[in-house]
């Protein structure tokens, strides 16, 4: 084969992988040329991560061909992949929290060079040079666990770039970075491309994808469903390919004029967080509360559920006062709260799905002497999991084994099983992929149609505009504006920033 020079940098054909009978990837093939940036799009569970792990040699494919520069690769391991110049920046960074920045950056290089003895000077020099190349300043001797998330991400990027790279795979590399750092990273990607390095870029943010990628590959349920030049894709088309359906984003139907008053908040204030908050919520209404970071929206949400103790004011549900600063009283009054960070505040990650739902209903299934009616509890929980279409292998599986969208549904199921009157959702679709997001919006719509009052706290403007009847804008702890749902996004953005 004389034409090895024309062969693409990476070529995959018919790559298939199954995990204990479940197909994760089926017959996937595409190629990446030197200096090309390809965007790999797909929902959670579409096979993106599996494909990345196979290219990196972490997982072995069942069948199919992979070649680097025309050379077929069989039995890839992390070391041979790295030696061939395939570098991965994993979504969870895959760093060593207990080691220093210098060692984290230099470890793969030492491993790849086959050194048996470690030379600290060599490791430091490499780390220093790499940080300099990226124009980043981080203390080389700091332990990685002591760094802020953005720096951890930069260290992970430095590690991938420390030694010669031919293909860099980035799995959501910009999640923790600020706008300026993202710009720096995209600049680095452009420079790498100019040097002939290929990039496989996984991101949910279309603007970033379109800025650096020439080519888009979409995976769904383990199969390649679309491929083409990036210029041919827009958000709607990409979403359609990723989810396999058109995601409706029409604003909700108008509220009937005779909707009963459900919740009335008057003069709620907490020093340093929010002040003079007044609003009404009607049955069947979806009320959005938005504001920039630090506007007091999260404190207000927590105050409604008693997690933050307000200084003054009142919250009435169905005409009855709710004791302030007492989550149990709030729950008893029919208020449910789904926190922003469901992973640390809303779920027992290592407990089963069933238990996570069941915990909200313990007292309803309590019998004499504090013994639980387990059969009833489980039946109740299972029913809700079914109604919310939680996709899980077993209801006894740990919650952390679920995707973001399904975890969010488990939290919802817990609250819905208590038949609340008012549901406060803080960032309902943070860290959830496009398809699940649309489904969560569908659930919100359905709930409000049943007469529930829903408060959605979010800074995701399209989300607010498609789900809410009214949107309150908060600034410096006060409600400064009120808009009707279906307002133009640009208008809302302007009022938020003003």
């Amino acid at each position, binding site marked *: 084969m004389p034409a090895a020079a024309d062969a693409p940098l990476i070529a995959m054909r018919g790559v298939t992988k199954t995990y204990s009978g479940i197909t994760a990837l089926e017959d996937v093939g595409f190629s990446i040329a030197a200096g090309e940036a390809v965007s790999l799009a797909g929902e959670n569970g579409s096979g993106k991560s599996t494909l990345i792990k196979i290219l990196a040699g972490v997982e072995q494919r069942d069948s199919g061909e992979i070649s680097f520069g025309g050379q077929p690769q069989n039995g890839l391991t992390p070391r041979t992949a790295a030696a061939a110049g395939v570098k991965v920046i994993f979504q969870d960074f895959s760093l060593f929290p207990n080691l220093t920045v210098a*060692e984290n950056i230099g470890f793969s290089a030492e491993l790849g060079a086959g050194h048996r003895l470690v030379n600290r000077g060599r490791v430091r020099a490499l780390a220093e040079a790499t940080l300099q190349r990226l124009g980043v300043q981080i203390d080389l001797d700091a332990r990685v666990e002591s760094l802020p998330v953005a720096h951890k991400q930069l260290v992970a990027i430095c590690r991938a770039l420390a030694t010669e790279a031919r293909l860099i795979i980035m799995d959501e590399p910009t999640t923790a970075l600020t706008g300026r750092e993202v710009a720096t990273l995209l600049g680095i990607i452009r420079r790498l491309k100019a040097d002939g390095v290929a990039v496989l870029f996984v991101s949910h943010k279309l603007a970033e994808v379109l800025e650096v990628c020439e080519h888009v590959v979409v995976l769904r349920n383990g199969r390649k469903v679309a491929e083409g030049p990036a210029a041919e894709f827009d958000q709607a088309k990409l979403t359609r390919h990723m989810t396999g359906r058109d995601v409706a984003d029409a604003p909700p139907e108008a509220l009937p004029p005779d909707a009963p008053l459900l919740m009335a908040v008057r003069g709620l204030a907490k020093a340093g967080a929010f002040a003079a908050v007044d609003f009404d919520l009607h049955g069947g209404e979806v009320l959005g509360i938005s504001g920039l970071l630090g506007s007091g929206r999260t404190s207000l949400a927590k105050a409604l559920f008693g997690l933050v103790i307000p200084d003054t004011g009142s919250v009435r549900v169905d005409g009855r006062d709710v004791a302030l600063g007492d989550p149990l009283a709030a729950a008893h009054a029919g208020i449910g709260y789904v926190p922003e960070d469901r992973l640390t505040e809303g779920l027992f990650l290592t407990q089963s799905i069933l238990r996570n739902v069941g915990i909200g209903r313990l007292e309803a299934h309590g019998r004499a002497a504090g013994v639980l009616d387990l059969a009833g509890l489980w039946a109740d929980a299972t029913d809700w999991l079914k109604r919310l279409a939680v996709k899980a292998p077993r209801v006894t599986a740990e919650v952390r084994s679920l995707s973001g969208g399904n975890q969010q549904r488990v939290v919802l199921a817990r609250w819905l099983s208590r038949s609340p009157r008012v549901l406060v959702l803080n960032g309902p679709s943070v860290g959830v992929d496009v398809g699940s997001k649309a489904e969560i919006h569908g659930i919100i719509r359905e709930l409000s149609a049943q007469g529930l009052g829903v408060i959605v706290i979010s800074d995701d403007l399209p989300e607010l505009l498609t789900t809410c009847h009214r949107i309150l804008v908060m600034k410096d702890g006060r409600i400064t504006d009120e808009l009707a749902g279906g307002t133009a996004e640009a208008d809302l953005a302007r009022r938020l920033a003003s």
Partner: protein
Amino acid sequence: MKRLDFSRNETLVALVILGFCALATISDPSFLSMPTLTDLLRGGIVLGIFAVAAMVVLVSGGIDVSFTAIAAFAMYSTTLILVSLAPGLPWPLAFALSVGIGAALGAINGIFIAFFGLPTLIVTLGTLSIFRGFLLTFVGSKLISNLPQSMRDFSKQMLFRGTNADGSFFSLPLAFLALVGVVVLTWFILNRTLLGRSIFAIGGSVESARRIGVNVRAVQFFIYVYVGALAGLAGIIHASMARVANPFDLVGLELSVIAAVVLGGARLTGGVGTLTGTLLGVTLIVLVRNSLIVIGIPSTWQSVAIGVLILVGTGLPAWQAKRAAARAG
């Protein structure tokens, strides 16, 4: 000059040791003497080798409670082989035999942990019981007080000996060099070889280590073989110095050893641990054992004192770290 870093266990433990010595000297001026020092060093040999071994496992994110059973097994079977088959074997060969038996038993741990991926505590709890039971049932349960000549010779070799002003004798056995050797070798492995750094890496994150191509199985296997070998060495030294091979000895010591290591700053969650800290931890525990009586605390209070030291010594830095994190967050 750098300020003392009080969030480090090492600093804290060193200060407690100094404080203890000061108190002991005030209540009994003869505390500060060569005999006290040599007693301390002598008492730290076996405990120190065990502690170094336990630290390596903790750094890798595992825990090993079977090393005392390995030590007893290796020590007793080596002695038995010498007595019944090869009474003339010189002590270096006898030591090599014990180290080899220890390494072989450690390899059994290694196979279960590295190749079957079983939790380290469960595996070593199991083998602790099996090794001990096997030793007492099949090898022997009788005390061997008539040690072979070569082991007795070894125990008589001293690095130095002397007489104190008040007429008391003191000496430091050759076995102390074994501890020094183990510390130097382990320091070299942990800090100067890629293998050692991989042990730290695995302790930090097994998945990350696997992803960048560290051969996790090989590293884990090495760790448990190494620990077994060190346990074999500690066992034979213990028998030689005690001039008796008692198959019921040593087992039960494992938690004190792990306590000393944790006192020295090694994290039970893995990835963090230093030899300095480990040796300071051992020093403190031996001091408490040998000399608690000197500062007027009855020796029955020994285990209470050790328990308090563990709670304060590891609790304080953890509490400080938590507060610092809360401030930063």
